[in-house]
């Protein structure tokens, strides 16, 4: 039980995918302009990340490993992720047209969110079990969502600040993300995993 909790703490705070491992920066910068959008994106990513880490684990353990085809992991994970994202897109389109419109191009872009592939690959390299894989994916997604939502609330404030023109937009966003990463260094050595 403690182990599972530690996995969550590790992925959400200590080894946060965005601010510590610097994965998934594209949607992090792209969708953090508005709080509503980022909440939607956070939910979609959480769903995709958890589901894809589960699927990739199953694919790896029950299809690739028995046949000794471990070297196909990257390509098959990409396949899995693409399908999960497409599936999510259709579900979102059906169930929440508003969210679908708000997320726009970023929903299919989850496919290229390296955090998703990163989680799948790390699951393998860390030799996580079934539950650990799901938790690891879920924790990574929660960590991503957590900083994404906080960051978007902060960006709404920064967007109206008197920022020098050359630093407007993404530049100040990256600087802020850097400062946030600095703040997240406070969690260093909190959990060793």
């Amino acid at each position, binding site marked *: 039980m403690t182990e599972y909790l530690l996995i969550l703490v590790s992925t959400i705070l200590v080894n946060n995918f965005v601010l510590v491992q610097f994965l998934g920066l594209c949607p992090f910068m792209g969708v953090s302009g508005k*709080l*509503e959008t980022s909440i939607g994106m956070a939910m979609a990513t959480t769903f995709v990340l958890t589901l894809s880490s589960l699927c990739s684990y199953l694919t790896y353990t029950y299809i690739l490993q028995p046949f000794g085809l471990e070297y196909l992991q990257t390509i098959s994970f990409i396949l899995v992720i693409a399908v999960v994202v497409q599936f999510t897109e259709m579900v979102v389109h059906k169930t929440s047209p508003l969210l679908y419109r708000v997320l726009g191009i970023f929903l299919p872009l989850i496919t290229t969110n390296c955090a998703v592939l990163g989680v799948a690959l790390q699951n393998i390299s860390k030799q996580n079990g079934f539950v650990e894989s799901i938790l690891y994916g879920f924790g990574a997604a929660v960590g991503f969502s957590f900083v994404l*939502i*906080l*960051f978007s*609330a*902060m960006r*709404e*404030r*920064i967007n109206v*600040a*008197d*920022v*020098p023109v050359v*630093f407007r937009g993404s530049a*100040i966003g990256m*600087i*802020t993300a850097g*400062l*946030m990463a*600095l*703040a*997240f*260094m*406070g*969690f*260093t*050595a*909190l*959990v060793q995993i």
Partner: protein
Amino acid sequence: MALLRITSPHTQRAGRRTSWVMQMVIYATLPGIIVQTWLFGWGTVINLAIAGVAALLSEAAILAMRRRPIRFFLQDYSALLTAVLLGIALPPTVPWWVTVTAVSFAIVFAKQIYGGLGNNPFNPAMVGYAIVLVSFPVPMSQWLGVSSVVASGEMLSFSQSLQAIFHQLPVIDSYTMATPLDGFKHKELLDSQSAFETLPALQAASIDSWLWVNLAYLMGGLALLWLRIITWHTPAALLGALLVMSGLFYVFDTSNAASPFFHLTTGAAMFGAFFIATDPVSSCTSNRGKLIYGAGIGILIYIIRTWGGYPDGVAFGVLLMNFAAPLIDYYTQPRTYGHKKAKTGLKIGGDH
């Protein structure tokens, strides 16, 4: 008749300008600075001087680049306040370039790049502190000890301090020692009782010196409260959360945890609670938000002190909560007159 045409109100509360607020905060740090100088020598004062100059210069440089009126903005004392807070927070013997780096990074990257006073989302002093803490961990971990406990048995003289800061002081090791927090953190396998008995950093004299420092900042903080420059919410929530966290774990595991009193009176607890966390620009807006904000910092301080990689967690706690402040603001709006419930979040529309 050339009559003024401006909007109401036509009268203003006399005297209480932003610059006055900043000055008062600077004055309120004086008891703490005096105690620190008395206990740890002139290093703090020298740091303050370096920091002040660096802050004013970097602020002026950016203002000049942005073609803003330099005098007008320098006169609001905000850059100086950042410098003072940093000067206090840095170890008294830290090399001058660390101070300059911290201060100029704070002014340039944490403040001016966001548009100057009022626009910075992070506490500039703490950004400056954190950046040098992670960049130069060695000089940042050298704290002087009180004269009665350190190996040399005396305080660093003024010239020695200058030498340590601007050049190098080979004998510095005999003057420095771990702070109580640092000592407690590295008690390794000792239980807390034996740690308090054996470790030099946890001797009564060392702990008392930090108690004095904290009491001095508590005094300054109470003065700010009395002047109504800050409200009680943030410090009370911060100290309360720290008290509750340390109390809980102390009761739970007396042999390995430190007492709440220890947590409240060592390190930067009071300084952080009254001077750092209360920075209005980067903290939450409403009273309810300030309570959450303060409590968050308190909890984070305890977590980082106990399980994290750094002896004290004020800087990171404040930065992390700065990060969360805008979101907290959305969900802690006060109930407006005539509304049944406070609004939360961003849903546009009437009362829910």
